């Protein structure tokens, strides 16, 4: 049973709006009175994952969900082309980001390792049809 659910859209290479979804999610959760340290971890993970979708994918959806058992989960489902080498992508410093992405301060190869570091739960599957990333945080039920 879900206590809260919200869907967001992310467009490919939409650098002008990069981070808007994460700002919106942070704002919603702040109004709910989440612990500031937990909120910061959620914001960091969400922002990195949103940037990854904009830089690397054909676009997709972000779903925020809060379950009755106190698990806050965010799903990032994109429409491809997938991560060519997931093991390398999980290693700090490995990046396939474009020059454009680097102009915006990203593409250092820290995205997925950062996301995993700050999340309580982390699950990722990738194929040429798309990447599905789930990050979870234990908050007070």
């Amino acid at each position, binding site marked *: 049973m879900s206590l809260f659910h919200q869907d967001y859209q992310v467009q490919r290479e939409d650098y002008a709006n990069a981070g808007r979804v994460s700002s919106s999610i*942070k704002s919603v959760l702040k109004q709910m009175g989440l612990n500031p340290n937990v909120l910061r971890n959620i914001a*960091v993970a*969400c922002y990195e994952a949103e940037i990854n979708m904009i830089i690397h994918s054909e676009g997709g959806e972000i779903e925020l969900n809060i379950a009755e058992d106190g698990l806050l989960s965010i799903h990032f489902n994109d429409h491809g082309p997938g991560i060519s080498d997931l093991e390398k992508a999980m290693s700090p410093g490995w990046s396939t980001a474009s020059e454009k992405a680097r102009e915006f301060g990203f593409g250092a190869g820290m995205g997925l390792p950062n996301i995993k570091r700050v999340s309580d739960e982390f699950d990722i599957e990738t194929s040429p049809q798309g990447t599905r990333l789930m990050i979870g945080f234990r908050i007070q039920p």
Partner: protein
Amino acid sequence: MKLKQLLQLIDGTALTPYDENQEFNYVFASDLMSDVLALVQKDSDQTVLVTGLCNAQSLRTADMLDIGTVLYVRDKHVSDEDLQLAESMELTLLATRCTMYETCGLLYGHGLKPVEKA
């Protein structure tokens, strides 16, 4: 260090409304926002982000981490859109003509510390 003293030290200007008595203890300097997101893990409200990356992403990065103050080096031009974004986030934007190296040297030499790694 109070914000007023920091501005004097780097001959800086404030681009948004600010509290001259705001206190800082830490500095993180980078143009790589993933590094900022990875390494600023606590005391972010007492941290100044020093960067040459003058765009919305440095503002959003600061906002995600609850860093309240961003200092742009080398007299970068800030667009009206980014100024509005900073004000909507209640961020304090500062600017200096100093280079990143000069800025960091001055702030370090006057007692501001690197962020503490968790």
